[in-house]
């Protein structure tokens, strides 16, 4: 263990240098550490850094990928109304879906936490189902529920005398529908994260709060919520990234329609880049997500870091 740490240099008399430079190098802790992390570094280089740089390179080519055109693709996008619609819809989709997921997850976690531990497992398992089913499959089921001719929702609505709703046929309803499905799919993730956080709050804090005079609501506000803030921040950040970059739900449910009103960055990039054959433009669309998310991530993680340093 003690060989060659920086604080305890090996006595030269006890360990005369034998062998070549390679052997000495391998004895140094920093070398060993580097070698041990090398697989991960290679993985990140291959799967994150290379695709990112390649996308950057692609986004600066012309449509036929024969000529370097600098920022032209980006300025072209900024001048198009459809693109601004996509930005608006992406933000609306991600922010409202994440807020709803966070809220529903919070409530579900509390309800689960309050259940006696016997019944808890069963309910936890059932509530996790939406998150466990591959979204491509579950979205197909939703699509069927929304279908103009066979919609089960409309059938139920008609049963109580309400006019059928054009779930996927009208901009407003279509936006609502994709958000609804995303919330249905993503809430269990929040629930399970919050449940873990709730279970890690020591009971004695609640007992102390009860004696200090806190009501149920005050315990939630002054004990539970502050103790969960880091988990909430990280979960929201993570979910925002995933929701912002969502592809499958929108692609299957509306394919961006009607009239491109439900397109988000990923589906729009797919349509422009793959379906319309302008790969450089598609790459530029997808790259717009990066600065937006990076700014949010930096602020969130800074807050998380500060709080975890202050608290135990």
């Amino acid at each position, binding site marked *: 263990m003690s060989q060659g740490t920086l604080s305890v240099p090996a006595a030269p008399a006890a360990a005369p240098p034998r062998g070549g430079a390679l052997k000495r190098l391998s004895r140094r802790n920093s070398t060993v550490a580097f070698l041990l992390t090398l697989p991960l570094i290679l993985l990140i280089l291959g799967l994150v850094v290379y695709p990112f740089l390649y996308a950057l390179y692609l986004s600066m080519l012309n449509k036929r990928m024969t000529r370097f055109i600098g920022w032209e693709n980006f300025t072209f996008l900024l001048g198009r109304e459809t693109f601004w619609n996509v930005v608006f819809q992406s933000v609306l989709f991600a922010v409202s879906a994440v807020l709803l997921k966070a809220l529903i997850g919070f409530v579900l976690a509390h309800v689960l936490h309050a259940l006696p531990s016997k019944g808890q497992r069963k309910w936890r398992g059932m509530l996790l189902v939406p998150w466990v089913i591959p979204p491509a499959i579950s979205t197909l089921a939703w699509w069927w529920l929304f279908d103009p001719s066979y919609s089960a929702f409309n059938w139920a609505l008609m049963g109580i005398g309400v006019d059928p709703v054009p779930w996927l046929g009208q901009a407003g309803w279509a936006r609502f529908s994709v958000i609804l499905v995303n919330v249905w799919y993503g809430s269990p993730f929040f629930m399970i994260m919050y449940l873990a956080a709730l279970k890690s709050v*020591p009971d004695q804090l609640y*007992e102390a709060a*009860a*004696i*200090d005079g806190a009501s149920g609501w*005050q315990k939630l506000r002054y004990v539970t919520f502050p*103790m969960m803030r880091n988990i909430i921040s990280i979960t929201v950040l993570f979910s925002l990234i995933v929701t912002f970059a969502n592809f499958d739900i929108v692609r299957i449910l509306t394919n961006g329609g009607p009239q491109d009103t439900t397109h988000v960055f990923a589906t729009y990039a797919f349509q422009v880049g793959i379906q319309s054959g302008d790969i450089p433009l598609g790459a530029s669309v997808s790259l717009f997500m990066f600065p937006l998310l990076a700014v949010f991530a930096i602020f969130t993680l800074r807050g998380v870091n500060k709080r975890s340093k202050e608290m*135990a």
Partner: protein
Amino acid sequence: MAQVTLRKVVKAYEGGVQAVKGIDLDIADHEFVVLVGPSGCGKSTTLRMIAGLEEISDGEIAIGGKVINDVPPRDRDIAMVFQNYALYPHMTVFDNMAFGLMLRKFPKEEIKRRVDNAARILDITPLLERKPKALSGGQRQRVAMGRAIVRDPKVFLFDEPLSNLDAKLRVQMRTEIKKVHQTVRTTTVYVTHDQVEAMTLADRVVVMNGGIIEQVGSPQELYHNPKTRFVAGFIGSPAMNFIPGRLENGAGALRVHLPNDIVLPVPAERTARYQNLAGREILFGIRPEHLTEAKNLDRPHFAPMTATPEVTEPMGMETLVHFKMAGAEICGRVDPLAPAAPGQPLPMAVDMSNMHILDPQSGRVL
């Protein structure tokens, strides 16, 4: 007025296990009462029932004459100090102490005045802006006490508050707690498993065992007049020695006859008390401090004996000697200058005026 009254209080769990088996206790206003006993004796459960953190299965608890069985903790006007301090990690020391007052909608100036005052009593004024993570164990303990003091409640409840501190700090905080109580004079119920803590802090000690109260009394009373074998063995360290034997009349006096033909005379002033027990099997109890090196043998109630120590433990101010006597493992306390050494016969004296005679069946002190 904040006396605490427990009447036939029972705590039963599902499956019929009883943690507390119907205890009665009266705690006077301003009194400092310590509940002491081994793990699982029901002392913490009793405290938590007073606090309202555990439901009372049967019986009645009253604070200040008002039955509080169905009153939630926040309306009982109590403050509690927990073993793990239970400070809110996201709040500063000031906010931790002010939290209870804030929830009760005290005016800001009043909160500040009270927190500053408590911080001064506890000597934590420079820490008020820190978060609990930046405090040592002793400082956290002070903050936890501060949180209780600012509330100015009817009753303080302490649940093993010193168990998480190291030995030196524990002694220091013990004095601190006593000092605080002498200043604020609030009725206090304190739970500990440490009999030294109990003896040093309490006006009255309540010894609990197996869900019942064995004995209630002042520290001196418990030490000199234990009522049961459990109390006799629990209070005092090292523990009291017990040797089975017989009381008999011989040579015109009452004597304790122990195995190996060891015979110890009962002092004259105790003869009347034990006379009717003559001929019965008894348990002879004697504390280590009453088994000393040979001294005072001219006095009538000191009986001579010889012991051969197997182990000696020098403590500085005294030396503990462990030896076999009448087939039992016995501990005595001798002067550090006495010639006590393993294997060397040592003349000793038994202070018979401090002996105890117990009924071996019931464990009661006779």
